[in-house]
């Protein structure tokens, strides 16, 4: 319950009035029970006199009206029973003696409806009389409700096809009654906004709006008439309705009534009378939101066409259907050009209905979608960057429109074909564009939409501007919390680029690279890495023998890595170079592989990898990569291995040096295949191990633990090398010697973890000796004492 003093007062007035109505209604019932009709009529008249009030707001008046009309029902029921001793005609005159017009007319309508029901008189005579007499009430609220009562009282009595009240009357009389009543009610309704009032204008309009359904009810009644054929509707009824709507010139009334009209009558009728309807809408008063009216119409028509495909596919068939779209889209253009006041957001909503129509009714007609976005473009061009106050709303509506086809098609390649669609995206302001293209990208990823041509990818990545590169119009900081997510999204798009043709696929990736490399340091970290991997993967899977193409692909990968490198990402570039080198090596392109290693990886190593730990890690990776490669000529390999060894020996920490050299020692393995230099290589291998051992040896005694660990690693590796690379068993023996010395020097307990490790290693050598005699030559017994 409101605390508004006005509301409280209203409630009080209403309660009082309702109380009187109920009292008088009760009196009336008592009189009716005594079958004293005249007294009952008197009581009834004083009951209805309560409706003469001007103090209630329309809403409260309505509440009062409902109570009173219920009592009136019991009066009509009694009269219909007919044992009151008066003829209907006498009764009809009797009630007209009442001096006050409002009770008189309510009674007249009540009795009139009974008169019709008695079938003593043609319905049309009474209709005509009632419609005419009710003109006496010119007060808007009272008149409106009186006529509403007329409309309700005659509802069941309308002559119509199959009605029992057809004697001397036809459905045309019903139409006349309803239409006249409609017209008069509308006039009163429109008038309601004028005149003095005790409530604010805004509130008055709000209350008036609620009464719209009373007037609209007449249109529904018309639509319910079975005898109202399309012929009558088209030639007579619609014209009269529209004339009244047009003539009243009231914004609220026109709005509500047009909408009611569209909802009330069948869509088939609308389809048949479309030009008339559209013409009228165009002529509505300024301020009427005709966009929403047309929108509603489009929705209804779409639903109709969708539900009745058969009706529109036979005879003129599909052609006619398409016409509807073209008719409506032309009309929308016309609306925009002919109406002085066009609210862009509303226009966009209207276009939205058109768009839905396409999806509902013409799902195959992609070009229609493009037509629609041309409309969108025309309407928002020049309005998207805060030029108008409703810019935010415009953007909101535009966004909705853009998302619809995305959701519907689930395939962004279709959208990329629509030049107007992309045009619209391009004129959006930065943030908005970013949002839309993010959704676009997300859509592609979610639906796994493959992008199979260079053009598509090019277009898409241009469109994805705000994600892919720094745009001129960018606002705020791109590198915010969402940046990571956005870039990952872009990165995941790379997996969508696909074409079974190797060359095309490469071209696609190449195009993508062009776009990505313009993205700035922060972005390429996200985008180029997957691009390189994607490229390398493609190369590996392709199985092609075309060296030129492969070279091209590798070059692409190389360029990408170079971009990354120049963007200051040495570590990742280094690794990618190694990957590229491996790929090249496997494809039998030693030169490229070599270049990747030396010009790429090693250069980065020399120039940009600074921290000792990173340098060590890099070298370990490098060695591992090198070990995989077997494509090089002896000389190249030799150079590489030697350089690696040199580089390793230059690592800062002895620990690193030792480990790296140990690893490097393994590189000489493959060199053994090179025949004549076998000895040399074996020697080198031994050298490296010895050198590593020396390095370990030379380390500060403080690092005893570490030294033991390193030497044990070396020893294990040595064990492996003997078997795998024919390392001279004597080298292993000397390693064991070194180890022994270490343990003795360090006074390591023969039960420590390292000692146990050593013991296991020796045991392993012993085991292996049964398989490979080389192990037999290893002197494992020198440590006998240590473990004794």
């Amino acid at each position, binding site marked *: 319950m409101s605390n508004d003093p006005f509301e409280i007062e209203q409630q009080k007035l209403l309660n009082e009035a309702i109380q009187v109505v109920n009292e008088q209604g009760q009196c009336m019932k008592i009189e009716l029970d005594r079958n004293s009709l005249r007294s009952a009529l008197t009581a009834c008249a004083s009951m209805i006199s309560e409706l*003469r009030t001007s103090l209630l707001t329309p809403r409260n008046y309505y509440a009062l009206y409902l109570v009173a009309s219920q009592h009136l029902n019991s009066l009509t029921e009694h009269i219909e029973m007919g044992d009151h001793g008066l003829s209907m*005609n006498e009764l*009809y*005159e009797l009630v*007209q*003696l009442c*001096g*006050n*017009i*409002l009770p*008189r007319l309510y009674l007249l309508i009540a009795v009139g409806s009974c008169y019709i029901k008695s079938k003593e*008189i043609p319905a049309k*005579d009474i209709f*005509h*009389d009632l419609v*005419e*007499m009710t*003109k*006496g*009430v*010119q*007060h*808007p609220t*009272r*008149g409106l409700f009186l006529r509403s009562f007329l409309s309700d009282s005659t509802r069941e009595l309308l002559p119509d096809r199959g009605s029992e009240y057809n004697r001397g009357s036809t459905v045309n009389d019903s139409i006349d009654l309803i239409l006249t009543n409609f017209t008069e009610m509308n*006039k009163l309704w429109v*008038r309601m906004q004028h*005149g*003095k009032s005790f409530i604010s204008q805004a509130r008055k309009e709000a209350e008036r709006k609620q009464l719209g359904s009373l007037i609209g009810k007449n249109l529904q009644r018309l639509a319910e008439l079975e005898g109202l054929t399309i012929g009558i509707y088209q030639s007579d009824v619609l014209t009269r309705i529209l004339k009244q709507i047009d003539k009243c010139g009231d914004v609220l009334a026109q709005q509500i009534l047009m909408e009611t009209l569209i909802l009330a009558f069948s869509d088939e009728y609308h389809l048949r009378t479309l030009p008339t309807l559209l013409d009228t809408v165009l002529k509505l008063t300024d301020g009427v939101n005709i966009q929403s009216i047309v929108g509603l119409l489009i929705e209804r028509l779409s639903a109709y066409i969708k539900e009745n495909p058969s009706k529109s596919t036979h005879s003129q068939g599909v052609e006619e259907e398409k016409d509807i779209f073209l008719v409506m889209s032309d009309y929308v253009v016309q609306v925009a050009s002919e109406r002085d006041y066009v609210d862009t957001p509303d226009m966009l909503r209207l276009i939205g209905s058109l768009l839905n129509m396409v999806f509902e009714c013409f799902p195959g007609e992609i070009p229609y979608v493009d037509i629609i976005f041309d409309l969108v473009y025309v309407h928002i061009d020049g309005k998207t960057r805060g030029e108008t106050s409703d810019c935010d709303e415009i953007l909101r509506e535009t966004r909705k429109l853009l998302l619809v086809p995305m959701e519907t098609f689930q395939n962004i390649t279709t959208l990329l074909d629509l030049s107007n669609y992309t045009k619209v995206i391009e004129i959006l302001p930065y943030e908005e564009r970013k949002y839309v293209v993010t959704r676009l990208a997300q859509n592609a990823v979610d639906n796994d939409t493959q992008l199979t041509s260079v053009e598509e990818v090019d277009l898409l990545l241009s469109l994805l501007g705000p994600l892919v590169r720094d745009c001129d119009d960018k606002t705020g900081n791109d590198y915010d919390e969402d940046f990571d997510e956005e870039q990952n999204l872009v990165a995941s798009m790379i997996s969508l680029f696909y074409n079974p043709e190797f060359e095309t696929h490469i071209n696609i990736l190449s195009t993508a690279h062009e776009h990505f490399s313009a993205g700035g340091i922060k972005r390429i970290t996200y985008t180029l890495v997957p691009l390189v991997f994607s490229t390398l993967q493609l190369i590996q899977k392709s199985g092609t023998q075309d060296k030129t193409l492969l070279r091209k692909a590798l070059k692409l990968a190389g360029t990408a890595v170079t971009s990354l490198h120049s963007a200051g990402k040495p570590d990742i570039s280094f690794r990618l170079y190694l990957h590229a080198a491996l790929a090249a090596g496997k494809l039998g392109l030693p030169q490229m592989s070599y270049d990747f290693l030396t010009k790429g990886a090693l250069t980065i190593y020399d120039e940009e990898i600074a921290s000792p730990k990173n340098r060590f890690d890099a070298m370990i990776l490098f060695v591992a990569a090198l070990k995989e490669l077997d494509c090089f000529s002896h000389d190249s390999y030799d150079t590489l291995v030697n350089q690696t060894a040199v580089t390793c020996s230059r690592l800062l920490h002895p620990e690193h040096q030792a480990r790296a050299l140990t690893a490097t020692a393994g590189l000489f393995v493959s060199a053994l295949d090179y025949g004549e230099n076998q000895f040399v290589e074996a020697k080198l291998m031994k050298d490296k191990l010895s050198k590593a051992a020396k390095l370990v040896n030379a380390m500060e005694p403080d690092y005893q633990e570490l030294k033991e660990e390193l030497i044990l690693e070396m020893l294990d590796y040595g064990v492996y090398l003997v078997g795998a690379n024919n390392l001279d068993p004597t080298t292993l023996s000397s390693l064991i010697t070194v180890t022994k010395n270490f343990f003795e020097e360090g006074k390591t307990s023969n039960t420590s973890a390292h000692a146990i490790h050593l013991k296991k290693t020796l045991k392993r050598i012993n085991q292996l000796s049964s398989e490979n005699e080389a192990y037999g030559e290893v002197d494992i017994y020198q440590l006998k004492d240590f473990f004794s």
Partner: protein
Amino acid sequence: MAGLMTFLGFSSGLDVSWNLHDSDGVPRGSVLVTGDKAGELPLYIGDQGVSGVVTCEVKKKKIDHVGIKIEFRGEIELVYDRGNHYDFITMEHQLETEPGVLEGSTMFEFSFDNAEKPFESYNGMNVRLRYFLKLTIMRKFAANITREHELWVINYPSQQLSPKNPSIKMEVGIEDCLHIEFEYFRSKFHLNDVILGKIYFLLVAINIKYMEIALIKKESTGSGHNVYNESDTLAKFEIMDGAPVRGEVVPIRIFLDGFDLTPTYNSIHSKYSVKYYLNLVLVDEEDRRYFKQTDIQLFRLPPENSKREGFAQLEDPDKQPPSKRRKKKKSSKSKSKK
């Protein structure tokens, strides 16, 4: 009452009862009359003969008389002239010419075959027109005993009324404020008639609250310097609620059945007239009243001629509102502030 009268000596111990009948012996119908002499009275139409039997019943002792007569009289009584009766008709029959004695119950037959009744009975505000029978028992040494018996007379117009029944059509208004044209489709009505009409609103610049038609009866009595006018609003009939806008047409339909009416009387015996007016009253939101009075004529029709067929339909609903050819007539409408 009778006891009191006896006690006071006014009573003569005589009961008189009247039994009126038509010339063919059928008892008279009666009519319920309201007003000063309210009650059920025998009804006479036009110059019907007045005849019947008067019975005198002497209660206590016998009454000596020198003759008994009965009169049929029509007279007009005026309020301002109380005591003076203007007899416009007097007819007399002797029932007993010789002196004699009344004893027990005695019946006298009488008959005024050509009882002339030029006017209708009327119970007005300042005037009364009455017909009565008067029995007089003349006595020698005592005051005559008289008894009166009222009759009610109505007349149907003897000659055919002029078939002309022109409509009343009038345009009234106040410049730049209100222009209306109203039309009563006829100007003469029988007493059970329906007044039909329409009101066209041509210009409405005031806030009208409601409109009503008052049915007014004006009675004027006397003549020359001594004219007394009395008017009585018989009924107010609301015909419109709320403010119309330009172009609206509001219907008028008033059933006269419900009101206590007489025909229009013009200078009855040069003593009085009764006229009827329709007063169209518009009341605005400030309770200012705008009105226009129009006189109408009422006449009496025999019931068989005043029956309506079906219900009173409004005439020609599509009738065009008054043409645009309007002269700027200076308003004849009075405006009065309440």
